[in-house]
């Protein structure tokens, strides 16, 4: 198929529909409004359903209902709205249902601002809701990757019977880039949803969608089962891009659009004879720990760059077991890191070569 020029948020909608998503429940919030707008326009054309819910709480609970009923379903929002969805997300995880949630992050805390940010890293990877649960979290850095990951997210959600989160920031939601919609093929062997509630038709016993286990022993068994699933996701799905790692004296760790700015800094430093690598986590959970196992011999330290006050840095310290110094450079509130500032920080780490 030919490439088309699309806005990030619309590409998300198009990718979802391409992957067979026919139900969308959402609530307006900047900077992701083009996702529900696109879905309200396009879903009816393919026999799908768009509902503007009364709140993000209601929207995610509609997702819970539709998913339990057997549908491919998505919701999207931005930071404060994702905070509201946490109640529904933990129920969906607890009841082991598939769905795709998109967070086009903006600055916080509180009402914060409407400009791009990455300050929901902890919320995404640590579970914002109650209980021991995990989401598979994809973090695309460009629109083609966004499209591919949204499509894959539906399959992964169905395969693991788990909610999948796709995070971007306001920049990726608003930017335009050419994207190609490859014919949709699932990379997983997907089972029929025999557990879905579609009426017994008198042919089977009732299907029950539930996350309540009043018997502590049964709830613990359920948690053990969930952990086994998370272990499989950790083994199979952790993913990272490595860039310019040979002879790197410093390795930058950055995800999403921040990684693109980091690449600019890496290229300009190269001209000055300073080799800097990049590890770009493509999944935030599971975190790509393995990418940190063998760092270049020349590597003197790591620099984590985020559009936050420092959240992913904790995972980098865990992944490197603090073998090397891990430094941080971040901007927040919608301020975007400048390549020069990143380059300066690296020179400072290397002992003030200017």
């Amino acid at each position, binding site marked *: 198929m030919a490439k088309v020029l699309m806005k990030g948020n619309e590409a998300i909608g198009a990718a979802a529909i391409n992957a067979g998503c026919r139900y969308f429940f959402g609530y307006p919030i900047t900077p992701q409004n083009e996702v529900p707008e696109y879905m309200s326009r396009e879903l009816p054309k393919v026999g799908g359903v768009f*509902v503007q819910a009364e709140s993000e709480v209601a929207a995610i*609970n509609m*997702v*819970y209902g539709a998913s*339990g009923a057997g549908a491919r379903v998505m919701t999207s929002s931005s930071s404060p709205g994702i905070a509201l969805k946490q109640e529904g997300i933990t129920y969906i995880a607890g009841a082991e249902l598939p769905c795709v949630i998109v967070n086009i992050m903006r600055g916080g805390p509180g009402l914060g601002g409407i400009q791009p940010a990455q300050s929901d890293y902890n919320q995404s990877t640590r579970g914002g809701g109650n209980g021991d649960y995990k989401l598979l979290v994809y973090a695309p850095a460009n629109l083609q990757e966004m499209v591919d990951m949204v499509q894959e997210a539906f399959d992964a959600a169905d395969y693991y019977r788990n909610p999948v989160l796709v995070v971007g920031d306001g920049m990726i939601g608003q930017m335009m880039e050419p994207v190609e919609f490859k014919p949709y093929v699932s990379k997983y062997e997907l089972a029929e949803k025999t557990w879905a509630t579609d009426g017994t038709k008198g042919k089977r016993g*009732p299907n029950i969608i539930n996350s309540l286990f009043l018997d502590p022993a049964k709830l613990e068994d359920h948690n053990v089962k969930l952990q086994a699933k998370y272990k499989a996701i950790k083994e199979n799905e952790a993913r990272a891009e490595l860039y310019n790692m040979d002879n790197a004296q410093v390795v930058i760790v950055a995800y999403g659009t921040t990684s693109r700015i980091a690449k600019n800094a890496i290229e300009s430093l190269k001209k000055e004879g300073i080799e800097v690598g990049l590890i770009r986590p493509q999944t935030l959970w599971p975190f790509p720990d393995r990418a940190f196992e063998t760092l270049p011999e020349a590597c003197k330290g790591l620099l984590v760059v985020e559009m936050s006050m420092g959240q992913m840095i904790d995972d980098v310290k865990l992944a490197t077991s603090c073998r090397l110094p891990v430094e941080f450079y971040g901007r927040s509130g919608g301020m975007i890191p400048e390549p020069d500032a990143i380059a300066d920080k690296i020179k400072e780490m290397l002992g003030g070569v200017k």
Partner: protein
Amino acid sequence: MAVVFQKTRGLTDVQTHYCPGCTHGIIHRLVAEALEELGVLDDSIGVCPVGCSALAYDYFNCDMHQASHGRAPAVATGVKRVHPKNVVWTYQGDGDLASIGTAEIIHAAHRGEKITTIFVNNAIYGMTGGQMAPTTLVGQKSTTSPYGRDAETCGFPLKVAEMMATIPGAAFVERVSVDTPANVRKAKKAILEAFKCQIEGKGFSIVEVLSTCPTNWGMTPVDSLAWLQANMIPYYPLGNFRKPEEAK
């Protein structure tokens, strides 16, 4: 010998956890009988709440969802939009529907979702041990209104049926009680009509059922029925508040 009564196929054989004399059990039977009599049991999908009826998914013999506190109408919306031909219903208490879930119930009605809500008003939070509900009567004692509900600081009890009847999308709204055999029969009739309203695609339907909580009211089941008659019915008048326009 002729069979004069038998348990509806709409309920499972699981023993319920409801307290002796609690009218949740009667309401379960009426809902199950209505689904069976309308021939839609095997096509129905129920959504149970957080509250004493949280475990209702084990008691109804049809597909069921367990919803978070107050969100059953949103969950039912998701189910109904995926399966528009199936009969989708919620079963909710007064804390669930009239406190934490007011936004969800009002907007499900507002959208005219073709679902049916069975709203069990027992004027108390049963499950959590007898705290004040939005429907607790003025002067009624509960564990969080130990001196009796004070209208000055807690407001007056919410009249849900009257409120729902102001919403254009609510096609059928009726308040019933299960305190006497005659009222039980009327309650059954209203539940049947509510489901019919959904089946005929007329809009949102809700039946508010006045119910007892002997355990947290601190009364015997018989005294509870008398208390409901003397206190609840005068404030929460029984009757129909909205019927779908008859097709001419």
